[in-house]
């Protein structure tokens, strides 16, 4: 990742890179453990000190990592800092994006739903359960989940089932 530079860019010109979209949406489902909107923005323009990596395509800066600060509007100024990257392959962007998602999950998610999210992550992005990210490989998303999160194996299934059920809550609203 040579030829990088940090630049302040208008928030209206920031978008999530196409190859990072699923990872970004995955992190949108997580719940932060505190009210991040209470935090004042730092020098990056967001509450997070991490500076997102981005590629400029046309007039937009397409972010593909370190988007923690973008997720909660209360901590975003009119301009934020991004690292401008040049000429990255699609797989490199995806890799960075999922690493960011794992990071978000490891540090921010509600602990009660942690294993369920891990199991889901391993399902929707098998790449995560590989040597690229982990020091050892797990046979199943379930195994990955409870090993990674160190929790009673049986509760993974229960929690995943609870997570999926909670998503259907809007459908329970019959008159």
């Amino acid at each position: 990742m040579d030829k990088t530079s940090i630049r302040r860019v208008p928030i209206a010109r920031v978008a999530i890179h196409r190859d990072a979209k699923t990872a970004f949406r995955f992190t949108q489902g997580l719940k932060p453990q505190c009210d991040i909107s209470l935090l004042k923005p730092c020098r990056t323009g967001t509450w997070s000190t991490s500076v997102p990596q981005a590629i400029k395509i046309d007039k937009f800066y397409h972010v593909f990592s370190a988007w923690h600060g973008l997720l909660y509007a209360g901590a975003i100024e009119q301009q934020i800092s991004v690292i401008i990257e040049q000429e990255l392959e699609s797989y490199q962007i995806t890799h960075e994006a999922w690493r960011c998602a794992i990071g978000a999950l490891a540090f921010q998610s509600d602990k009660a739903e942690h294993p369920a999210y891990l199991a889901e992550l391993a399902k929707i992005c098998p790449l995560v359960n590989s040597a690229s990210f982990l020091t050892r490989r797990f046979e199943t998303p379930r195994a990955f989940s409870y090993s990674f999160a160190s929790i009673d194996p049986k509760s993974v299934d229960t929690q995943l089932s609870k997570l999926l059920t909670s998503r259907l809550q809007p459908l329970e609203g019959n008159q």
Partner: protein
Amino acid sequence: MILPEHKRLKPNSSRYSKLHEIKRSKLASSSKDRLSMATLLELVRYCDKHRRKSNWFANLALLSLVTGYSFTKLLSNEHRIERTGLGVAKFYSSWNIAQTPELALSALTLVSIERDGHVVVPEWLAEPVMKMREEGITADDCTKKFKFFLTNVKPNTEEHVTPARLANVLGYQKHQFGLSSFELSFIMNESKDTYSQNSYIAFHALPLLERHVAFMEQYIDVTDVRNYLASNVPKDLRFGSPRVLTRDSVIALFDYLRSKLKSALQFRYDYAAIHNCYTDYVINLLQLATLHRPHANIFRTLEFFDFNANTVEILDKDLGSNRLIPLCDYALRELKQYLKYLRSLERLVRFDSPSVADSLRKTLKGKENLFREWRGDVLLDDFQSLTNVYQRDKTYGSNWHRHFMMTLLFDRGVDRYAINIYSGHQLKHEHIYERSKSTEFDQLREVSKVIEGIIMEMNLFRPTNMHEYF
């Protein structure tokens, strides 16, 4: 003040003369063209006497009296009459009923109707007229003779019985027998689009036929007809629209929409699928509540909704045919939920789909259409993938809402003139005596409440708090 000669309208030269003529032909109860009961009873006595002498004109006159058909129409082969061999003859409607649609989902069924709508008259009355037809006698051949036959009716009232006045009797007396103009139009076999509502409603046949018999009974013996109705006409027989879904089908359809949304929600990363499924549901519900036709730019922009008066202005046909109708609380609540959801979605996707977020902002400001489909990375101008109920319908879904809801409103006895206005129909040849002219907006609110009741009773699936979902 006397207008100068050049400013007076010349009779029959105005472009309104045709309309004026139509207005004059209407059947106000004070009309001088109305035949009094005394005259009609004298006519019946006269016809009975001549009928026994096998004078076919007597049957022709009585038949015109009881069916409202002109004698020209009675002698025209375009209007089908059929003997049943059971003491009655059937006068078939010549309405061009829409094709029975093939349903797109197996869980759906249509209300069963008999396509050949008809009224029944005693066979002895219709028989000579059928023979006249068989012998090729047309109205042109016997106009003078028939008029002459009628001039010999000499009532004490000194009213003149003419073929036109005879055919109009049913129109004057319809109120006495609870027949609406819509039903009258069916009995008289007027063109279906005279009252456009007739294209949409699958109506119960028996009550209509019984009211018609009650009218006929004033003048002729209807024993055969009554026996026929009692033993041969099922209580659930309906005529009219073949495109009416059953109530259970509508519930099943909303269950189907629910299952689509359920699948989309479980794989939460496809926001486009969630948005499209939810929008499909909301549009269907609002169509049900407003009788909106499937149309491009359905419901147009937010600017056409008035949240103070709870109304919506609908344009679902040609320009200039818009209508203002009330929104029931149920529909309003769903719409507000949807707006909350759009606001939430706009915040959610501002980074990963900036173009969609930008379109949503414009939608919420009322600058662009309210209901839009998410395809690829953009919101289309309108929603083009509504669930089809009838196969082979194109682009904007199926027109099932109007057929279903108007039939249910009719079944609940809602004023048909109010339904007419609510559904955006204008009566042809409407004149100052027609009730549509005096229908008030409050009556439309009542229609809206009945619609709300129907929707509530079906206990349709209703997503809640979709704005909190993401």
